[in-house]
């Protein structure tokens, strides 16, 4: 079993590359959904201690959705936006709605996370040649630290660190950036697939 701290630049580059491919797919799906051009890219992928991840902006008011990943790879996927940014996203999809609207707002936000997570995973699945499935998203609006620490509880039994993938959405019409945080958190035993590919071992 591998440890997240053993991930080196080639591994992170592999994840970033597959993420960027996924992001391109996600951006075109989102563009269709919102009927306007949206760009998305993954500027960085890095490993950081869970405690730092959570204590950083622990009180920030966010909307978050949480998806479980299974199949050839086990992990969690988080999508998190500051509430005002999340409201802008939702507003595009369902005018007049917001994060606290438990019916439409929540459903719009979860749908966006479904698309983003799905696109990312399908890129990763074809890269690593493994099947991946995703659960329906669960949703919460509250303090970032409170939401993240609950989501990361199971993972924290294995590792004190987490793999963080940042994504930036860009609305070309408005000319504005939407900064979201996308956390993809694989279980340590799932990292073997990434190691094998990065090290040129194709165990297929």
């Amino acid at each position, binding site marked *: 079993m591998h440890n997240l701290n053993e991930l080196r630049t080639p591994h992170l580059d592999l994840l970033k590359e597959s993420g960027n491919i996924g992001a391109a797919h996600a951006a075109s799906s989102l563009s269709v959904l919102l009927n306007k051009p949206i760009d998305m890219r993954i500027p960085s992928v890095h490993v950081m201690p*869970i*405690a730092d991840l*959570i*204590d950083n902006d*622990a*009180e920030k*008011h966010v909307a978050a959705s*949480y998806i*479980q990943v299974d199949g050839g790879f086990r992990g969690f996927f988080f999508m998190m936006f500051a509430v005002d940014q999340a409201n802008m996203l939702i507003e595009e999809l369902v005018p007049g709605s917001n994060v606290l609207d438990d019916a439409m707002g929540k459903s719009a936000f979860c749908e966006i996370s479904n698309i983003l997570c799905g696109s990312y995973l399908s890129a990763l699945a074809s890269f690593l040649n493994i099947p991946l499935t995703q*659960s329906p998203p*669960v*949703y*919460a609006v*509250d*303090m*970032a*630290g*409170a*939401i*993240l*620490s*609950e*989501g990361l*509880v*199971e993972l*924290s*039994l*294995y*590792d*004190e660190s987490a793999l963080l993938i940042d994504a930036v959405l860009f609305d070309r019409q408005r000319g504005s950036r939407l900064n979201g945080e996308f956390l993809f958190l694989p279980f340590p035993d799932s990292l073997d697939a990434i190691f094998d590919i990065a090290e040129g071992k194709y165990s297929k």
Partner: protein
Amino acid sequence: MIHVGLSEIKFAECPETLKTLGLGSCVGVVIYHDQKQVAGMAHVMLPDSSLARTTTYPLGKYADTAVPALLKKMTEYYDCPISQLKAKIAGGAEMFKTTKLLSMGSIGSRNVEAVRNQLSAHHIPVVAEETGADYGRTVEFLTETCNLTIHAIFKGKRII
């Protein structure tokens, strides 16, 4: 103000305060001596260290290691008689409406129960608590008054 991070244990003497941010399913445990105005706070993430898959972990992470560590320092370093110590706890929420996804079940209530069990095993009375529900909490303990201030986004401020 002394910041207590995830899985950490910190101590403070009057007039210092102990603060931890964004408790979700985690539990903030304060053990204090009101006459001496000394307190220790742990930010507990999980109920029991037998769950750990790693050999090393911070003592504040698990309820069964955090409470004894708090008591040890309060009695040995700060010289407080164990029979005069009291506790206040907050947190242990359920942030997601469905816990179906989390294989560990209702981790918030398990944390609260584990902390209560640890405290009662050491005969430390829980003087006040604000636990459960579905919202995040930021808590601050004031050694001067022994008040625990709880702040939540949609609920405002409460003092216990």
